[in-house]
């Protein structure tokens, strides 16, 4: 649900960026903001797009910007997350480490079985989300990896 203040901010954004429309819908709540009136002929179009100008890449109602080089590996199963094959051994992977496709990143224990989770991309590990020994559910984020260029 958006507050009044948030709706007001969105209106500002829509008009500043010269968007033609913004529509948000969620669980029975809907807001639609239609932008500055579309001009019906060439002459007025110039007038209708006023201060706007700085809206070249006006990505409308964009979700938080996503780095196309960022890749997130999520858990394919429910279980317990382990960073190393045994408490004494070293972690499979550390932040900052470069990993190849197929490199084992962690183990998820499910029903007494140790499931090795491999990297499906080549790149550098930016973040490890769960702590060692932490339960993870299906779809939970495990690793953030910056793809090799």
């Amino acid at each position, binding site marked *: 649900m958006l507050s009044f203040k948030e709706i007001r901010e969105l209106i500002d954004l829509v008009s500043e960026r010269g968007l033609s429309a913004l529509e948000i819908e969620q669980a*029975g709540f809907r807001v639609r903001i239609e932008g500055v009136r579309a001009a019906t002929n060439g002459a007025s179009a110039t007038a209708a797009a006023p201060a706007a100008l700085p809206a070249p890449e006006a990505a409308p109602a964009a979700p938080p910007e996503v780095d196309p080089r960022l890749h997130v590996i999520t858990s394919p199963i*429910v*279980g317990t997350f382990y960073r190393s094959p045994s408490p004494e051994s070293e972690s499979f992977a550390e932040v900052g480490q470069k990993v190849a496709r197929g490199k084992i990143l962690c183990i998820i224990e499910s029903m007494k079985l140790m499931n090795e989770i491999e990297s499906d991309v080549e790149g550098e590990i930016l973040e490890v989300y769960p702590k060692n020994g932490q339960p993870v559910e*299906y779809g*939970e984020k495990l690793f953030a990896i910056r793809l090799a260029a």
Partner: protein
Amino acid sequence: MFKKILIANRGEIALRIISACKELGIKTVAIYSEADRDALHVRYADEDVCVGPYPSAASYLNISSIVSAAEITEADAIHPGYGFLSENAYFAEILHDCNITFIGPSPDAIRKMGDKSLARKTMTAAGVPTVPGSPGPVETADEALAFARRAGYPVILKASAGGGGRGMRVARDDRELSGAWETARNEAEKAFGNAEVYLEKYLESTRHVEFQVFGDHRGNLRHMGERECSIQRRHQKLIEESPSAALDPELRGKMGEAAVAAARAVSYTNAGTIEFLLDPRGNFYFMEMNTRLQVEHPVTEEVTGVDMVKEQIAVAAGAPLSFLNCDLKPRGHSIEFRINAEDPVSFKPSPGRITTFNPPGGLGVRVDTAAYQGYLIPPHYDSLIAKLIISGRDREEAIFRGRRALDQFVVEGVKTTIAMHRRILEDPDFVAGRISTRFMDRFAEA
């Protein structure tokens, strides 16, 4: 008693079980597929675990994910609800190995009743009457034709591993049977992973009357009276009531005894249901046993006053049946209407967003639902959005009350079966209690 129960289900039955746990002071864990993130059972449980993507096979039927979810949340028991894994003996066995209580019967009882040909043999041995049928699975079309000619048409083909109406086909002559043979086997293969089918004589103008049984782990086994479930469409129940207008105390006693004998033959524990066909002359035949809680359990709760889900949990934890010294004679009358999101004419599911949801209330009205205004019904699961359970001092009061409650039930955004139920309640045969499993055929023609 258990400290934490994981509910391996979704929808209204997951909510029903969460409510029972809360009333017993037991913590709950919901599981959900990615399609159910906004579902109420996730919101109302103490903890929740996403177990997979939307296909049931990858989430609500994903045994290893569900067992892992119980392990990481340290749940000490799992309630399977109905459908999904509730009649999966393998699942019950694995839980046992993992030291997690399966709230339901033993794997052995599930297996013996799950194999429909084996169940028939067990019943015959226990002296419970069964419909004349093939002694076991039928291997070839010729074998099927031979049986049908011997027993007389019509006959019905049923999946050995089946239930819920899938894989069933009625044939009235050789030609129909030849046609139905492959269809039934294909459907059985698809639905249950097992193409085996068997044959029964098809009884017409019968009622579907089932008995609720309950066993504890101390050897007590009781029945809780019957449910009349003849109002079906394509073998899917639409309206269930208790008591049945067709039973007098004597017949109730005889059928109840047979139900208890049937359950005792597999040393049954926890809640189960013995389904009978009842013909107009008072002959009854064992059809099958459902080794789980039924969708329609609320009508039994209403007329007996027993909370069956709390009873299931207590019995699974080792308690004796709570109603051993009670008179469970039905008190009043109760009718359940299944409100499905579906087109009332084509019967096709009608998933979508519920834009208005205003269920009825007041005296004698119970609503079991996981729907709410703004809820998006996912297209992946079944179409039941609410159960409307109406109770009254007698059947007549329940019918009149049902009419007013259906009138007051407002659902917008999706099509539902509400109007169809309203029409059934105006049908003179229904009102007079003159019903059989063919009722909806006649009704649809009218």
